[in-house]
């Protein structure tokens, strides 16, 4: 373990402790983003750049802003400063709970002690077990066996992908990755169930959607010039980088998940700078729905074909191409594009749903 790694680990622990002890939720979100950034540096030090790109885009970028948007929605950013938010009026008449303050205080104290004991026991147990595990990166480790050997030695020949990781997740173990894209799909569906404002069936009731649009812009200036100018410079760079990461998934670190997350973060930045009027032109409920559908459909059909031919020992007529060329490695390039589209749409729709209740 080199010195940089030790410093990073210390930072991680400091961040973790700081998150638990900060009173303000906003600062804990900022610390959390810093935690992810440190984590992504550590992934690079551990020689897994694919993970590092994803961690930086998702952990430090998108989740931070999602947390922030949620806090804004529930009026928790700075309660003392913004006294008269539109939602405060609504919440004023909420009835108090029926539990008396005294019981609550007593049970909270017991709860804290028990929770502390449980968490500490688990932490000690896990740390003790991890210390007992073989050290990362040793030749004699059990995970350095025939499985990884074949991925490394025959990977390029069998999958056509220079990036072993892409070959592994999208060809050798494609079923798992298909499951993972469905995790994102089901997550989007759940967020839609939770946050999408439906058309009220009762015509007499006023729609919530307009209210949401009003409260959306409450804390922020309509159009911020500094943000707009800066994003005019950064946005194209992010987009090009994201597309590059997706398209080169089989040649260099990255791929659908990381590139898609970068693209999604780019869209969110653009949305923040220019507002929904601009983004509605190219990212709206309809496009998101159809892009996700087509991408998942292509993935499902292409992989079903490949699974079916593979399992029945039929020849699959998918050319692998010359390793190293951009058009190579069979299905991996197509699957990367599909995953990238799904991830980008997911990230964008999470943010849009949190902010205004529809994509």
């Amino acid at each position, binding site marked *: 373990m080199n010195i940089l790694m030790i410093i990073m680990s210390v930072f991680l622990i400091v961040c973790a402790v700081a998150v638990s002890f900060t009173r303000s939720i906003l600062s804990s979100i900022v610390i959390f983003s810093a935690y992810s950034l440190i984590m992504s540096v550590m992934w690079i030090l551990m020689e897994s750049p694919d993970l590092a790109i994803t961690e930086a885009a998702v952990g430090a970028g998108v989740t931070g802003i999602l947390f922030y948007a949620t806090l804004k929605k529930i009026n928790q950013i700075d309660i003392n400063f913004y006294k008269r938010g539109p939602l405060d009026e609504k919440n004023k008449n909420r009835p108090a709970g029926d539990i008396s303050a005294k019981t609550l205080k007593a049970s909270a104290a017991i709860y804290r002690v028990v929770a502390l004991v449980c968490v500490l026991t688990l932490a000690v147990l896990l740390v003790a077990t991890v210390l007992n*595990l073989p050290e990362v990166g040793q030749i004699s480790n059990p995970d350095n066996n025939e499985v990884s050997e074949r991925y490394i030695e025959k990977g390029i020949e069998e999958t056509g992908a220079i990036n072993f990781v892409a070959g592994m997740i999208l060809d050798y173990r494609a079923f798992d990755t298909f499951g993972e894209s469905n995790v994102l799909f089901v997550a989007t569906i759940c967020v839609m169930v939770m946050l999408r404002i439906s058309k009220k069936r009762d015509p007499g009731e006023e729609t919530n959607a307009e209210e949401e649009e009003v409260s959306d812009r409450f804390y922020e200036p309509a159009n911020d010039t500094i943000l707009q100018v800066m994003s005019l410079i950064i946005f194209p760079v992010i987009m090009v980088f994201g597309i590059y990461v997706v398209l080169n998934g089989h040649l260099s670190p990255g791929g659908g998940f990381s590139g898609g997350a970068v693209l999604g973060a780019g869209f969110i930045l653009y949305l923040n700078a220019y507002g929904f009027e601009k983004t509605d032109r190219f990212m709206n409920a309809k496009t998101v729905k*159809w892009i996700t559908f087509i991408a998942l459909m292509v993935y499902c059909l292409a992989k079903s074909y490949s*699974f079916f031919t593979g399992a029945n020992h039929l020849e699959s007529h998918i050319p692998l191409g010359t390793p190293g060329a951009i058009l190579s490695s069979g299905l991996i390039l197509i699957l990367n594009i599909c995953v990238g589209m799904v991830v980008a749409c997911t990230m964008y729709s999470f943010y849009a749903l949190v902010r205004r209740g529809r994509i």
Partner: protein
Amino acid sequence: MEIIRNFPFFSIMICMFSAIVTSVLPAKAARYLTRAALIAVMVLSAVLLVNLRGSGTSFPYMMGHFPAPWGNEIRAGELEALMALFISTVALFSVMAGMPAVLKDIDEDKQNLYFILVDLMTASIISMIYTNDLFTGYVFIEINTIAGCGLIMIRQIGKSVVTAMRYMIISLVGSGLFLIGVTMLYTISGHLLMPNIRESIAELADNDKYSVTLTVVVGLITVGLAIKSGLFPFHLWIPDAYGYSNVASSSLLSSIVSKGYILLLIKIFYRVIGFDIIVKSGVNNILFVFGVTAMIMGSLAAIREKNIRRMIAYSSVAQIGYIYMGMGLGTKAGTVAALFHIISHGATKSLLFLSSAEFTEGSHSKEFSELYGTGRKYRGSALCYSIGAFSMVGFPLLSGFISKYMFATAAVGHNLKMILALGALALSTILNTIYFLKSVIVIYSDDPKKRRPQSLETYLSGAGGMMSSKMQYFCSIGALTVINFLLGIKAQTIIDIISEGLEVFG
């Protein structure tokens, strides 16, 4: 036979495919597609089961062009086919009988989302049943968790949203523990494929290496899956989750979602760790203790409950306890009893939830005080409910009797465990009788306050598609009742399939 080998893969992909297509369909088409997909899976699993019956073999199926330790693999045998058949049948009947509630509780522009969730949930459980790879198992646990959360909160009332949040947090703790366990297992064994892990573990055990780590791994995986399936101290999300969600969701969650995790745990015990190692380590004794406690505590809580839906939910806590008690016996007979009870409880509990829907919706309340006399108004569903209740209590000719009998015979021969298991069985049966008979008596008797049951507005109005929703409702609960009788009368066939399947399961 060659094409039949593809059936497990087809079942998974049909569900996935229909989920993806549903995302662009209107609600009505989504209803048809989901039912068609579930029927297709049912037929495929039944054909597979008939073909494997008596062969005493199981076969691996390569997912892709690369053989097992490198690529993904699924594996099917009699037990897996039976469980897939059970899952798809219960899912189909839950969706069909719960359709009026789905149409009523869910806004129309969100209805197709509900069917996506049902499809993905079924796909994930079927994949968990068939998978031969630990990490594939984890991926589908994730899908199952998120889909379960969506199924609870799609009824957008305050309580169901809060309880969905609670379910998500508790369930994610379980997933986290499971994932940590799998990672550690990979680090010490170097494999994710189940039979290969077992080989490495046997080697490690011979050399006496990593024995503490292995115990921690088994502990983490077991606790993780126990939390997710709602074993006793982790059951607090169950009553609210089943009590306040849509009735179709309650039925799906209680009868198949929690069972998927238990099946995966049994698979890990048999195929990954080796059941003899589990018994030697004593993990099963811990499961036994918690199972027995759950049997008593769940029933006690159910007696105190005044809401019929929550009462049935608390009864699930007790029944999950039965299953873990069977696994905890540490013998093959115990596991067979547990597996039989998974099926029996799934068929009965979905029947109870679905048949109670008509009279709770009809009287606009789930409180017992409002349910007096409803049984005479809604005759069909009340009859089905009573049969379900008798089955839960353990009435002969019904499936519940067979599972109680099997637990009792499996317990014979273990000294201390026999006393505990038989005692808990007896006590729990008495408690079951108290609360289930109370509910049956309430729905058939007059209101002591002489109030007349008010409005006759029924749960079963509204379009149901090809069949009228009334017919669909009665066909489904009728079919579940018949299944209950079949499981009670023809139990030996199912038991044979389970024990033959278990032979080749490890």
